[in-house]
C-alpha cells in the first residue's frame, strides 16, 4: 500500500510573527520557515508504516512556492521515498489545496493519505476533511493512534471529552494530532541521501485545479494585547487581590 503525505511549508513554530503596519498581512520576510509540525508527525507515521512493512512506498507532496522543496527534502530525509512539488507562488486556500490533492490521489492511487490536522499559520483545520469529502472517502481526524486492519483501520481520535475510537474503510484520510508519535530527527547521512531522492515539479493546472481565492482578506490586525500586571509577595496577598481588587473569587 502506498501512503501519500501532504506537507506544508509554514513559519517555524518558535518564531514570533509581526503583523504588517499597513494591515495587509503578516511579515514573512527573512523569517525561518519549516515543515508544519503536524505534517512532520504525519510523515513520521507514514515512515513507521513503511518500516513495519504495512506500507510499500511513502510519497510526500507539497503545494507551495519553489522553496517548499526544503520541507519536501525534510520529509525525504525522514524516510519518504519520493516527493512532488506543486508550485503556487501565492497562498492557496484549503479547499483549493484539497482539489489539487484529489488530483494527486487519482494519479498516485494511495491506500492511505495522512495529513497534519491543522497548519500553524492559517490555523484552518480543513484540508484533510475536505479531501475526504471530494474523494468520497472516510476520514479519521485528530488521530493519536492508527491500527491498520484488513481493508480498514482503527483510528483513535482526540475529542473534546477524551478519546474516541472509530473504524474507517480504506482507502481513507487520516489527520494527525500531536500525540500520534514523536517525529525523528533526520540523521546527516539521511539528509545527504534525501538530496538524491526524486522530486518532481508540477503545477495546479496539471491536476485541473484552480487556485483562485474564494475568500477576501480585508485586513490583518494586531490582537488585543495584555499588560503585564504585578508580582505579589505571598499567597495571602494574592487571594486578597483576587477577592477585593479583581472580584473573581
Amino acid at each position, binding site marked *: 500500500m502506498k501512503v501519500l503525505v501532504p506537507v506544508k511549508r509554514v*513559519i517555524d513554530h518558535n518564531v*514570533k*510573527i509581526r*503583523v504588517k503596519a499597513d494591515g495587509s498581512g*503578516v511579515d514573512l520576510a527573512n523569517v525561518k520557515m519549516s515543515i508544519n509540525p*503536524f505534517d512532520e508527525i504525519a510523515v513520521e507515521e507514514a515512515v513507521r508504516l513503511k518500516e513495519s512493512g504495512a506500507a510499500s512506498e511513502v510519497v510526500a507532496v507539497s503545494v507551495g512556492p519553489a522553496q517548499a522543496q526544503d520541507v519536501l527534502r525534510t520529509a525525504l530525509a525522514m524516510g519518504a521515498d519520493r516527493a512532488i512539488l506543486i508550485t503556487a507562488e501565492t497562498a492557496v*486556500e*484549503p*479547499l483549493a489545496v484539497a482539489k489539487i490533492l484529489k488530483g494527486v490521489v487519482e494519479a498516485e492511487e494511495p491506500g492511505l493519505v495522512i495529513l497534519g*490536522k491543522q497548519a*500553524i*499559520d*492559517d*490555523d484552518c*483545520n*480543513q484540508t484533510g*476533511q*475536505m*479531501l*475526504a*469529502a471530494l474523494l468520497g472517502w*472516510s*476520514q479519521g*481526524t485528530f488521530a493519536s493512534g492508527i491500527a491498520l486492519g484488513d481493508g480498514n483501520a*482503527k483510528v483513535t*481520535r*482526540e*475529542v*473534546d*471529552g*477524551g*478519546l*474516541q*475510537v*472509530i*473504524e474507517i*474503510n480504506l482507502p481513507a484520510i487520516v489527520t494527525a494530532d*500531536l*500525540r500520534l508519535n514523536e517525529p525523528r530527527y533526520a540523521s546527516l547521512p539521511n539528509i545527504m541521501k534525501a538530496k538524491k531522492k526524486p522530486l518532481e515539479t508540477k503545477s495546479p493546472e496539471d491536476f485541473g485545479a484552480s487556485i483562485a481565492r*474564494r*475568500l*477576501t*482578506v480585508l*485586513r*490583518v*490586525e494586531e*490582537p488585543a494585547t*495584555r499588560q*503585564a*500586571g*504585578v*508580582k505579589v509577595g505571598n*499567597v*495571602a496577598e*494574592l*487571594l486578597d487581590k*483576587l477577592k477585593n481588587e*479583581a472580584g*473573581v*473569587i
Partner: protein
Amino acid sequence: MAILLLADHDNTTLSDQTAKALTAAAQIGGEIDILIAGKNASDAAAQAAKLAGVRSVIVAEADALEHRLAEPTAALIVALAEGYDTILSPATSTGKNVLPRVAALLDVMQISEVTEVVAADTFKRPIYAGNAIEVVQSTEAKRVLTIRTASFAAAGAAAAEAPVRSVEEAASGDLSRFVENILSQSDRPDLSAAKIIVSGGRALGSDQTFRDVLNPVADKLGAAVGASRAAVDAGYAPNDLQVGQTGKVVAPDLYIACGISGAIQHLAGMKDSKIIVAINTDAEAPIFQVADYGIVGDLFEVLPEMARQL
C-alpha cells in the same frame, strides 16, 4: 436568509457551546434552525427548542448519527443545505470534524474559528496561534463557519418553545463505524464552561503530583483543571485537558497557570481570560507578561498554601 446550526450534544444533554454558537448566529441575523443529529436525542432536542431566537429544531435520528460520525452527519447537512445560506457549528471536535467536509461537498471555502461577526458576510478569526487577527469576507452563495465559543456569551431561554420536526438521515455509504469512547470521568466543571481554571504544566512532574497538588485548590475554588501540552504529552493529564492553539480555547474569569512557561501555543488558548495568575519559579518566564498577578515561587509550596487559606 436562514441559518442552520449543527448542535453539540451527547443525545441527552445539549452542551452550552450550542447556545454560544447561537449567539453568533443571531448576530449574523436571519431565521435560525438548530439541527440535532443523533439517536434517542429527544432530550437534547427539547433543550434546543428552549433557546431564545430559534425558529425550529430539526431532529435526525439514526444509528450512524448516534456519535455524529463525519460522513453521515455531513451528508445529512448537505441534504438540508438548500434552505440555508449560512451553515455553522461551534468549533468543537465534532464541528471541526464535520463542517469542512460539508464545505467541500458544497464547494464552499469554510471560515474556521470565528471570534467576531463584523457583518453577515464578514468575520474575524485568529491566525498564527492568535498572534494576528484576519478580517475575512465571503461573497459565496453559502457560508460555512465554525464558531470559537469562548468569544460569545450563551444565548438565553426563549419565552415559547420552538417547534421540533424530524427528518430522515441521508445515505452516505457505510464508510466508518463507531467503536468506543474512552471519555475522561470528572465531577469538575467542563473546561469550556468553567469560570475558574487551575492549569498545570511540565513542572508538576507526574500524574500523581498533578492531581495531588492541583485538585485541592481546584476543589476549593469549584474550578476546572487544565494542562499545558507538555503536561499532557508526559502523561500527567488526559488530552482533553490541553489548553492552547491546538487544544481547548478558554476564557474564564480566572486562569491560574502553575508551572507553565507561557509558550505562544499555550497563550493562544487562554490569553482572553479575564484575570490571569501565574505561579512560576522563573521570574523571566513569558507567562508573567500576560499575568495580572504573579507569584515568583515554587508551586509545591504556593499551591498547598493556597488550598489552606481558601
